[in-house]
């Protein structure tokens, strides 16, 4: 496994405001959340059945799986409502010169 570093993910201007934006990063599909507490990034798959989380309902804090309505805290990745029981894998992020970067 290579050394981790900050990598550009998406221009802040391209992030859907107050919503969840799907972003392809290499082989990985990530979810960028514009939450009430700032930007957060996670893997885009629901940990229950693998649905695309960015197609789900987002209220600024929690992201709901579009298939079974399991719920995750988009800021911490914690699974807060079944059938989702495993937390989301979160990826550290920061904004640098108008670009959202992830530490990966």
């Amino acid at each position, binding site marked *: 496994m290579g050394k981790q570093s900050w990598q550009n993910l998406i221009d802040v201007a391209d992030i859907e405001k107050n919503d969840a934006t799907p972003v392809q990063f290499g082989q990985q599909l990530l979810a960028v959340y514009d939450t009430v507490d700032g930007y957060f990034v996670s893997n885009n798959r629901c940990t229950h059945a693998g649905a695309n989380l960015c*197609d789900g309902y987002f209220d600024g804090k929690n992201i*709901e799986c*579009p298939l079974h*309505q399991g719920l995750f805290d988009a800021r911490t990745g914690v699974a807060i409502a079944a059938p989702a029981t495993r937390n989301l894998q979160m990826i550290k992020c920061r904004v640098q010169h108008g670009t959202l970067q992830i530490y990966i």
Partner: protein
Amino acid sequence: MATRIITPISQALEEGALSRAELKTFMRRSNRPALIRLALLLAILSTTTVLVWLSKDSMLFFPAMLLQGIVLVHHFSLQHECIHYTAFRTRYLNDIVGNYCALVIMLPHRFFRYEHCDHHTYTQLTGKDPEMIPMPRTLGAYLYYLSSIPYWKAKFSELIRHCLGQLNTTEKRFTPKSEYRTLIIEARAMAAFYIFVLGLCIASDWWAPVWYWWLPVLLGEPVMRAIRMTEHVGRPTTALMKENTRTNITNPVMQFLCWNMNYHAEHHYASSVPFHALPELHKKLSGYVHTEPRGYLGAHMDIIRQLFGNKNGGYSR
């Protein structure tokens, strides 16, 4: 980690049936439409309850109980909306109202949620969809299903098994392991409630729950079975959402009672879209989903036609 799957909504987005912006608009939640509809539902229920009371010494007693039953069994539609957390914006309201509905129709709420999750994952796939109603092979089997006898047999045996602490293999598949205990406690609490009410009836010689609740539910359930059949029965047993689910165009009264769940194909495409947005989603997905313009009656004509071997029109529209 879960393998990525293409959900119906991802597929619809990729095929351009609707845009992400449109989906986000449709998914907006609100408490107001459900609170208004719930208040109306309870007002209708109060009216039918009065009708049962007024007709108790007449020939209209059983018709009045049937009417009451039709309203009562449609608590299923509200409960269904609640298990998707789309009835109310405030998430816990869905749990409170859903559990009220659960008691009315004897369908444990948490259990229904998990079972229904698998119904959405494996819609109309034989052996995998836990809610699948098989296409009847004979007219007798069709009428037997409509009688609700197999439904109640399944529901009572399910409740008893869960009270005894037993979950079968299918139930263990769709329930998170950490929730096994919850389902057992839920079933026991529900059974205890019914036993308490029954005990109250016997002790006080007060039989209102029988005449205003349990008997009407039994009388009304065939109507719900008939409606449930129209959603998937007779549609191809395939994973293709465009094919396996039927939307039924129905009258405003039934649409009100079923919380717009006649737009069933749209619901399966985007189960995070609340009931009040389904008519608009239906317009958007027009031509993309299978629609039965003749409604519930048309769906049953379709089923019966297939039953007698003439499949023309069954899958082609």
